[in-house]
């Protein structure tokens, strides 16, 4: 469902981050991307998630060439097809758990409240619906972030070091949850992580070296 062909990305100062990178992910596949800090893992994730554009090369998701989409279409594509989970949960402090989950769905005419409730129930947060992020533990917040990422039923879930701010137990629990959801929702999961232990639990592990995946 994801095909990346010869993408390149340079940053200011002409530093090459991605150099002719090729990558393929199948529907329902879980892939871990590992590598040293600053090697370009997050850049790759941002490009896949349409938050950034490559300088060269093509990215196709479900056969759609991202380069052919304008800003409006990209935003809609992101909203419908892609889910994001970041190291920091980025929950809106002014909103309740339920509302945070619903934020991506606000752009759509139909209500996603039922699905939100189901998902929150699924992740064990049905008793925390009206709580605010400040009243949750780190693991709970990250679970809310995961549910938010899934609210619009994306086909691709991108997770950028989602366990980075959690302890080992919390990280394991979140990993378990992601894998369960991957199975239940049949979505592709690409996860950037530093933890080889967690990476090992995924279907495939690729390492980024010199701007390429190996």
């Amino acid at each position, binding site marked *: 469902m994801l095909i990346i062909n010869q993408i390149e990305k340079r940053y200011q100062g002409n530093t090459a981050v991605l150099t002719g990178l090729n990558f393929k992910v199948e529907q329902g596949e879980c892939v871990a991307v590992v590598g040293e800090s600053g090697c370009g893992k997050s850049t790759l994730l*941002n490009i896949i*998630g349409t*938050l*950034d554009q490559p300088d060269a090369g093509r990215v196709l998701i479900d056969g759609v060439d991202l380069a052919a989409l304008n*800003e*409006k279409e990209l*935003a*809609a*594509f*992101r*909203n*419908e097809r892609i889910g*994001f989970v*970041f*190291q*920091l949960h*980025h929950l*809106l*402090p*002014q*909103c*309740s758990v*339920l*509302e945070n989950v*619903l*934020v*991506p769905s*606000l*752009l759509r005419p139909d*209500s996603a*409240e039922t699905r939100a409730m189901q998902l929150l129930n699924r992740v064990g947060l049905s008793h925390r619906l*009206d709580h*605010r992020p*400040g009243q949750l533990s780190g693991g709970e917040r990250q679970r809310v972030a995961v549910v*938010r*990422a899934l609210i*619009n039923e994306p086909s691709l879930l991108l997770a950028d*070091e989602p366990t*980075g701010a959690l302890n080992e137990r919390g990280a394991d629990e979140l990993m378990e949850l992601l894998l369960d959801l991957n199975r239940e929702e049949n979505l592709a999961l690409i996860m950037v992580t530093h933890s080889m232990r967690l990476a090992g639990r995924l279907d495939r592990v690729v390492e980024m070296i010199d701007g390429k995946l190996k």
Partner: protein
Amino acid sequence: MMRLVLSGLRFYWRSHVGVLLGTVLAAAVLTGSLLVGDSVDGSLRKFALQRLGHIQYAMHLPDRLVDRSLAKRMDADCAAALLLRGMALTDEKQINRVQVIDAEDSFFKVAGVDLQLHPYEIALNNKLAQALGIGIGEEVSLRMERPGLLPGEAPLSAQNTDRTVRGRFKVVRVLGNDELGRFGLAANQVVPYNAFVNFQWSEDGMPVEDKANLIISSGEDPTAVFSKVWNPADFGLTFREESGVLQLESSAVYLEPEVARAALSIPGAKGSLTYLVNSISFGERSTPYSFVLAEQSNALKDDEIVINRWLATELDAVVGDVVQMKYSELVTGSLFVERERDFRVAAIIEMKTLELDRKLAPQFPGLTDVDRCTDWDVGIPMEEDQLEDEANEAYWNTYRQTPKAIVSLKAGQQMWANRFGSLTGIRWKNTDSVENQFLDLFDPAVAGYRFVPVREQALESVEHAMDFGQLFVGMSFFLIVAALMLTGLLFVFGVQKRAEEMGILLASGWRPSRVRNLFMLEGGIVAFAGSLIGSFAGIFYTHLLILGLSNYWKGAIANSSISLFVNPGTVLVGAVSGFVCASLAMWISIRRQSKHPARELLMADFLQPPDPRLRRAGRFVAPVLFVVTCGVVCWALTAEMQSVTMPFFSAGGLMLIAGIMLCRDLLSLRGRHRVMKSPAGLALRTLARRKGRSLTVIGLLACGSFLVFAVSSMKEDIVSHADEKWSGTGGFVWFGESTLPLRDGLDGVNLRVLDGDDASCLNLNRARQPQLLGVDPSVMSARQAFILDDDVWELLKLDLPEGIVPALVGDVDTGMWGLEAKVGPEKGDVLDYVDESGRAFKVKLVGSLPMRLSVFQGSLLISEKQFIERFPSEAGYRIFLLDEKIEGRRYERAGLDLVRSVDRLLEFYAVESTYLAMFLVLGIFGLMVGSAGVGIVVLRNVLDRRGELALLKAVGYRNADLRKLLFVEHGILVAAGLAVGIIAAAVAMVPALFISKSAISIGFLIGLLLTVVLSCLLSLSIAVGLALKEDVLSGLRNE
């Protein structure tokens, strides 16, 4: 700690620059406003000194004359002049109400001006020269009042002679303000029209020689010297001896009360009163127009008369017969009523016995100095055919003013005593030392001949002048508050950004007070620097305000030119006040922030639910305040209040608080709503998150829009009700003011005038003795003029104890602002005046004309009866209220100016209107600062929420969605702020609309609203544009 402070200052310099700018703005506006006060004070002081030159003391006798030589005898520092009202004329123009100063060279020397005028040379001040459009070398005519020894309305005063005198002069000098161009004795910054001519000319052209009505002194208090050098002749008093009888008489014919009192206390004094009666009749026989002497005599009863042989023969009357005497009694103004009284002939006296009385008869100009009876020119009504009586003519030719009869002094005074006096002479048979005794007994000061410290009074009037500093601080108040709120807001942002730092310090064991002090010290340094810079920037702000006052707001200072005066003390006060205010704003911010426990600070999460009890209680605040506001409005409408100020600010203030509290409640409500359904719901939720920030913006805009809209609504439509009798015009179409009095007045309501200080809003100095106007209250009552509910004119008829004169203040504003006095029959303030004879009397402000603004603004109205009793020599009328326009040319010799009454009101209203304009401009500045505040809040919110916005983008929100979200979010704040302010202004204006019958220009208000909304939207657009220009996604980075 200092190290931390300094590193904080260095590291967070960007935040501090914002705080610094806010403080600079607040301190600059505050200092600038105070400096405007200094500048107005300084300018008024300069004007006061310019108008007096070196003059320290002055004796001004508007209705009397003294001998010019008096000044020469006193001191080298004294000089005399005649100060006269007049008109200046060229072929094209006539300028009325010119002050003519008939002076000799010593006058200019004493006043400190290098000026010498030869006869028929004239020096004009700049204002008059410009008004006439002439310069040096050109010619100008002056027509001025002809000063007379006998008051114009006094019985037997000549009437037909021209009461004006005219001369033609060559302009040799145009005097600037520093050269006595501003000369005037009234405490007023408005430059009069001044014309200086040489004394020599007045001797040629005036009926009085060597006389003056003004003596000035540039030295020490001249009272002591004056008391040593005066002599009776200086005051027109003469001791005349005829055949061993000494008589004291006055060139003004009637002896003033203090003169009479002093003279009658000399042993052997006998008063006498000579009058011209209309006829003396016995049966069918009668003789017209006869002098009758009333003298102090024990031998004569009050119903007895001694007639001379000629009269006895003419009437064929003998001792015991009863004769009838008809005479004219002066009742009021110049109105005479003929009365009759019977006398029994007690004796017949031979003509030669009356030789002494003929010689001692008073000299009436126009009467005793003409050859034929038909040439008599006297103030009493006379019949032509009676004047041609041949027998009487023969008597006149033979015996001149020999009295035809003698009555007792008591009877004479009962018949002929009038407001000018009750004696025409006092006689002594024993002439020894009478004059010396008189010198001892007569006190000129009691008679009103006294020097007044004019310079001291002028400076005192400036001291008590309107405080423009306070006024501008008041007008700039919102601007100052807006700047301080902005400072506080920026500081709060800085502090919130550093919440973690605060939490770490607390977690490290720092006491909260120490943490507060650390931040306060850092903020204090910024506040100090800001205040210091701001106080100096205030001088520039003052320049701007003075520029505005000199060009666009001239009305506020009655077209005077104000110069910049910088008092270092004021700059210091501005700096200290700015520092204190900014520090206070910071202290409040720090205190609120440091209340959070370290845990919350470290998490930078201040979102704690409020105390439910407080929340429940707070819910009632807005409705309660709203009800109280309605109560205030109803009370103001029903309590017949005159001033709208109190209800306006009470209702407005309460409504503002109620509105802001309501917004707070609404935000809390939205914040608690379970699930948001749209991006707008998300916006509301965000607003509720930072309620303090949101309410600050709402408050800032609400206060600004309240002031701006309320002030705009205060603009009254003077013209719309001007034809109503209850309005400030009294329903009169025309208002006339003449330079010289018109004895018979015009066809309308006529008022007598005693010149005094102008207590209207056109005078920036504090009025000490406002101008008095004498009016017939019955005439006003009959016309229902200036009457709203009760007939205020009835108050002028009050009989107050101790001879206190009841007075009405010209309008409500004069009482409130011009005089700052209480009015009312009971509690009214009492002002001191001195009558024409030098006697002090009190004027009580028993009421006021009921409207805020009337054509009588700046004056006090007393009844004409009281006026002429106290100022008998103020002959005729100088102010007129007319229903129809009259031919002005007929009265140009009197210098009559006619203006539409409504134009006069508009002239006064221009001052208030200018204040409103200034208030509006400063309020708009404040709103601009408020709009900038909105922009800063938007920017700050966006920066704070970069992560949030990045997340939204990551989940599919477009830039357009984010822009819309931010617009909705902050647009709600703008709309709420404006709505609260406008509704509060509308509610506050309800009493004003009904009480002052203001008329609001809806078009102007809509235009204003659009301008404000557009400026807020512009500020919002710029801020949102700038915020979204940055790479929003950088907010997703993990650092």
